[in-house]
């Protein structure tokens, strides 16, 4: 595999009243597995269905109902593990995490505490060209999602919808390798990108397909290096966990607030209490979830309804053989194969659909030119109009057609922009449009010479000035372009004008 050399980003430093502080961050990301049915039942996972209509009796924990694992969900988690270059455990097991809440009808969540399906892996988090943070993954386990409680429909009651209950989640647990709010958001974005490439999670944060619990602590400069040498977590400070965040912006804001809160306490001579906190987007603050404290006694034990999950290496190998080219590899290949910058390669490979579109345009053509057109003209316009590549009115074939016309010299770069606008708004075959609307550029030097002669003859005063000051030749070029409706080949015009004025 091609690997771009990266250096690690600098950790974020916050200046307190008394000294400088650094942040230590670890994330638990809950990613909803893309599957048709739930982890242990045959109920649908479709978002936005009528309340309690996607619920099987096993999801509602009716007496006597037994869970049967959805093999595809396991395959998806294995696929995710492979995408994160992680160890796949051929034997894993399900445990019960016991707690009481109205949207958890079983009274426990089936999870994997002691023997997770996926072990250690890693993610390269891009922080700009040449800069990336290597974040270690500790584990990925498979578990059930809970239902949804709605508190604002009635003054005295909470309403519970179990449609999400039992949907398969992957909990991706990182090591405390993240050193700033931006890195945390970039880490979640990278996981999302990889899983979208793999097709294992749609990454829709608004619908709750991707949520993060963020662990934050603060330490003094130098402490983190000491942790790296000794592996002793205690030097990293006491952490607080901010629960259930579903926006990159909130993740950053919550970390920033929480770090400053901890620094203020420590500089006042206080100490941090390890606790679960909630971020309130309205106030921009985090607050303690006291109710969580006593519920923390989860009394885990192996689920007696489920045998250990044993999978075969052959099956894992089969899944590995179907992995697509992943973002890091695709980006590195774009840089070497098309000669583009790492930044452009990053833009084009952000979504697998974008990368595929670009490659269709670039096939057999100039890669750099294709990258410019796809990024600046097409993506720029789509973004302005709030569309994704799937809604692009310009196909890769049409954009390729425009590039071909430029390459052949049929149209100038400037006319190409007009042509792009026509194809974007009206559609049609670029070559036919150029013919029908007489947009072909004039490369016939005889015709251009005639235009230049006409303008020189009509403007003797300008000619005198331009002879004294060659910089004024640009005025003639402009006049010729105007007279030809922009269709004259600009290089040819330049050349002829300076030759004629030089006479």
């Amino acid at each position, binding site marked *: 595999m091609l690997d771009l050399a990266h250096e690690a980003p600098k950790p974020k430093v916050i200046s307190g009243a008394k000294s400088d502080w650094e942040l230590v961050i670890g994330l638990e990301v809950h990613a909803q597995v893309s599957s048709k049915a739930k982890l242990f039942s*045959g109920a649908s996972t479709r978002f936005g269905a009528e309340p309690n209509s996607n619920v099987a009796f096993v999801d509602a924990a009716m007496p006597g109902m037994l869970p049967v694992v959805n093999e595809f969900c396991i395959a998806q988690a294995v696929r995710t593990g492979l995408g994160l270059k992680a160890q796949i455990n051929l034997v894993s097991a399900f445990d019960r995490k016991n707690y009481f809440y109205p949207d958890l009808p079983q009274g426990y969540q089936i999870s994997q505490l002691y023997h997770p399906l996926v072990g250690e892996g890693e993610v390269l988090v891009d922080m700009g060209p040449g800069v990336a943070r290597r974040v270690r993954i500790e584990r990925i386990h498979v578990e059930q999602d809970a239902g949804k409680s709605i508190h604002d429909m009635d003054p005295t009651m909470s309403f519970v919808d179990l449609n999400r209950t039992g949907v398969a989640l992957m909990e991706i647990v990182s090591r405390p390798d993240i050193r700033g709010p931006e890195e945390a958001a970039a880490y979640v974005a990278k996981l999302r990108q990889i899983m979208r490439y793999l097709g294992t999670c749609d990454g829709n944060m608004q619908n709750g397909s991707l949520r993060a619990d963020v662990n934050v602590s603060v330490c003094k400069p130098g402490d983190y290096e000491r942790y790296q040498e000794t592996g002793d977590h205690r030097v990293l400070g006491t952490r607080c966990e901010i629960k259930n965040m579903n926006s990159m912006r909130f993740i950053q804001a919550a970390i920033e607030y929480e770090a400053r809160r901890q620094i203020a306490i420590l500089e006042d001579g206080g100490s941090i209490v390890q606790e679960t906190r909630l971020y309130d987007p309205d106030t921009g603050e985090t607050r303690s979830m006291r109710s969580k404290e006593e519920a923390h006694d989860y009394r885990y034990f192996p689920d007696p309804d489920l045998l250990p999950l044993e999978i075969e290496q052959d099956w894992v190998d089969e899944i590995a053989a179907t992995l697509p080219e992943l973002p890091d590899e695709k980006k590195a290949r774009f840089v070497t194969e098309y000669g583009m910058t790492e930044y452009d390669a990053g833009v084009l490979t952000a979504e697998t659909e974008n990368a595929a579109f670009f490659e269709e345009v670039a096939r057999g053509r100039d890669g750099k030119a294709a990258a410019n057109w796809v990024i600046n003209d097409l993506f720029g316009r789509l973004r302005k109009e709030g569309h994704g590549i799937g809604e692009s009115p310009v196909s890769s074939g049409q954009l390729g057609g425009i590039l071909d016309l430029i390459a052949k010299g049929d149209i100038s770069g400037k006319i190409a922009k007009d042509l792009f606008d026509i194809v974007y708004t009206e559609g049609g075959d670029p070559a036919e449009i150029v013919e029908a609307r007489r947009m072909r550029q004039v490369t016939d030097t005889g015709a251009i010479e005639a235009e230049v002669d006409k303008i020189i003859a009509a403007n003797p005063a300008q000619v005198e000035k331009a002879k004294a000051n060659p910089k004024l030749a640009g005025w003639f070029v402009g006049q010729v372009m105007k007279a030809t409706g922009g269709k004259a080949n600009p290089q040819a015009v330049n050349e002829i004008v300076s030759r004629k004025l030089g006479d």
Partner: protein
Amino acid sequence: MSIDLETARRVAHLARIAVSDEDLPALADEFNTILGFIEQLNEVDVDGVEPMTSVTPMRLKRRPDEITAGGYAERILSNAPDAREGFFAVPKVVE
């Protein structure tokens, strides 16, 4: 190991089982009897013995990713003490 009244009270609360104060000593006693039995089991040396998860050689059953259930909200809600507009209705719980 011995379970005191406070621990018994806490376990009952975590399980959301209402146990009155006068019933707590009996409950604690029962816990202690069970734990005593487990302590007896702990005397057996099981070093290097794989945990037995099934009496017959069985593999965890799997299901294909197909929608085979759901679409019967009224049946799911039929035993609920209170249900409104397709939701379970429970005493307000707000974080």
